[in-house]
């Protein structure tokens, strides 16, 4: 039994069907990369996996460790071991990054009368290369692109998830951040045997994250699955047009529209 099994998943947002029959299996310790043009449904898939209420499953199902996710809210999914790195995390005024990291790690918010010097959050911040004074910052308030991604990663590492879902952890970050994020994710997967679903547009992060499978999503469906190196090379040479021919007819039209074929 795979850790995550997605069967014929259809998802609507505001009444509009975005996912049109996604099938995906991720086994324990496997690393999957999800590619695809803009608006193909990659983020929708991620948001549905973590249970964001605006993403309504109309058909199909998702099983995590054999359990139907339909009955679980985002809190319960997180507690089962699904950790998610947002592409655009919200800024929350007054909520300290230190406390969120601690809560992610199953600890209480920092109480200086019980623990004069905070240790846990600082250790996580060190891992992702953020200065220790970030512990006092309000989460995501005034953070740069790279700082947001590092802060997201610090939280997820503290959660010790069984499945990490990363939504474009490499977008809008400089080369140093990219390298660090890639390496930390790879280390974590190798140390803990966690599974990973990595959404990206770029090959670059895959220099640091060892990947087993690649999928190409288009028009709300996964249209190709295969070896990451082969798929990426083909996309880089020919663009996503390379896969127009493998699209089911109902999606092909949409796909061509996106690609101006």
């Amino acid at each position, binding site marked *: 039994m795979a850790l995550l099994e997605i069967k014929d998943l259809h998802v609507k947002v505001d009444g509009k069907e975005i996912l049109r029959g996604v099938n995906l299996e991720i086994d324990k310790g496997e690393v999957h990369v999800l590619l695809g043009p803009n608006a193909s449904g990659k983020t929708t898939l991620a948001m549905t996996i*973590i*249970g*964001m*209420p605006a993403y309504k499953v109309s058909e199909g199902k998702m099983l995590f460790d054999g359990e139907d996710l339909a009955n679980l*809210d*985002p*809190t319960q*999914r*997180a*507690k089962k071991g699904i950790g*998610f790195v*947002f592409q655009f*995390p*919200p800024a*929350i*005024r*007054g*909520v*300290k990054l230190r*406390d*969120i990291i601690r*809560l*992610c790690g*199953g600890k209480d*918010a920092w109480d*200086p*009368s019980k623990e004069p010097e905070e240790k846990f959050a600082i250790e996580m911040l060190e891992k992702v290369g953020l200065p220790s004074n970030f512990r006092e910052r*309000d989460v995501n308030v005034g953070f740069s692109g790279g700082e947001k991604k590092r802060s997201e990663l610090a*939280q997820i590492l503290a*959660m010790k998830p069984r499945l990490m879902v990363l939504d474009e952890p490499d977008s809008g970050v400089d080369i140093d951040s990219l390298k660090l994020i890639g390496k930390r994710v790879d280390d974590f997967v190798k140390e803990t045997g966690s599974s990973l679903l990595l959404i990206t547009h770029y090959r670059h992060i895959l220099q640091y994250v060892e990947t087993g499978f690649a999928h190409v999503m288009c028009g709300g469906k996964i249209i190709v699955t295969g070896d990451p190196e082969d798929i990426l090379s083909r996309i880089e040479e020919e663009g996503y047009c390379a896969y127009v021919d493998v699209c089911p007819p109902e999606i092909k039209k949409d796909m061509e529209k996106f690609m101006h074929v």
Partner: protein
Amino acid sequence: MFPKWYADKRGKAKELLKEAKPAKYGPDVDLGAFNLQAPSHVKINGLADLEKDVRSASKVVGTRDDEQYRSGTYFQYDNDVVYLKYSEQLKEHTPKGLIVLNTDDAVQTYPWLEKYWFKELPMGLDKYTTYVAANSVGGAFVWVQEDVRIEHPIQACLFMGTNRMVQTPHNIIIAEPRSKVHLITGCTVHPKCETAAHVAATEIYVKEGAEVTWSMIHSWGEGFHIRPRMGAVVEDGATLMINYILLSPVKSIQMYPTVVLKGKGARVNFRNLIFGRGKSNVDVGSGVILSGEESRGEINSRAVIMDEATIDMRGLLRGNKPNTKGHLECRGLLLSDRAKAKAHPSLDARTNEADLTHEAAVGKIAEEELFYLMTRGLSKDEATSLIARGFLDTDIPGLPPTLQAEIGRIVSMTTKEVM
């Protein structure tokens, strides 16, 4: 012996009271339904001698019974000052630098108080001010001498334990030039005292280059009507900071403390943190009159409103002089469908060189923030509580770190209690 002017002024207030009209804001309270008298309470030798219920209630509003990190303690139980003491350290270092007295005693010791008596807070302002002017009992008188800078705050607890009484303290703070002082007034009630009124007058005089901080922490009960009145004047290069924290449900509370920035470069900073709980009717404003050139005023109000509470958050910035600057921020977070919040910001520029701005927002928690925290494993309630606690930002600039931590703890405890 009370000076003659004192009797005259009380007499005048009693006359005014006959024709006094209800205040502009808040439900009208029939003060005739409350008693000015209360049983007397014996003096104690230390806060440890207080009855357990009294001690734990006063702790909630920031009164430290170990008196650590405090320069002095004033404890008024109903109408009696049962304890008044300076720290040994203060006695040693600035023996004559600071005077703290029961205002009733101060009037007799320092008859020159006539020139401060209801000067910044006109006794005819509204019926509650007039009522205190006619009937004041006790209150803390704090007088700090020129160039004397008091490191730790003075704590004053105004405690009520008698049903149907009205407490009427008159607080006066006078900070002589270049002095520095911080007063914390914690106001609270005995758990057995269910209904009463608290009508207070506070006057603050911040002279050239002085710094005054006044932190009020209130914890009342569902049957209490609260009408504090305050007037303050800030002179050249002086700074006043006013922090107000309301923790408990009340029947009604209405206040609109107003500060006149009279001097050049005078500053004031208001910070209000309010829990609107139960069926509370809360109407809290802050006013700043920028009458000194280059004066600066800032008002920052945050309210978390739950249950069936209603809140009106008011603010006034009036720019009378050029090169003045004021900013007003009112934010209300509604945690229940039945809670109501209104913000009434008011900017009044009387010269085209006054720079006045405001931001106001009332609404519920953004779902995006809630679900973000849920994906981190927090339940919906835990996420709501964390956001509400963060919203009531207790990083108050200029507070001593220990007090900052104490206030943080007080607000966290209340957040936990209500969620």
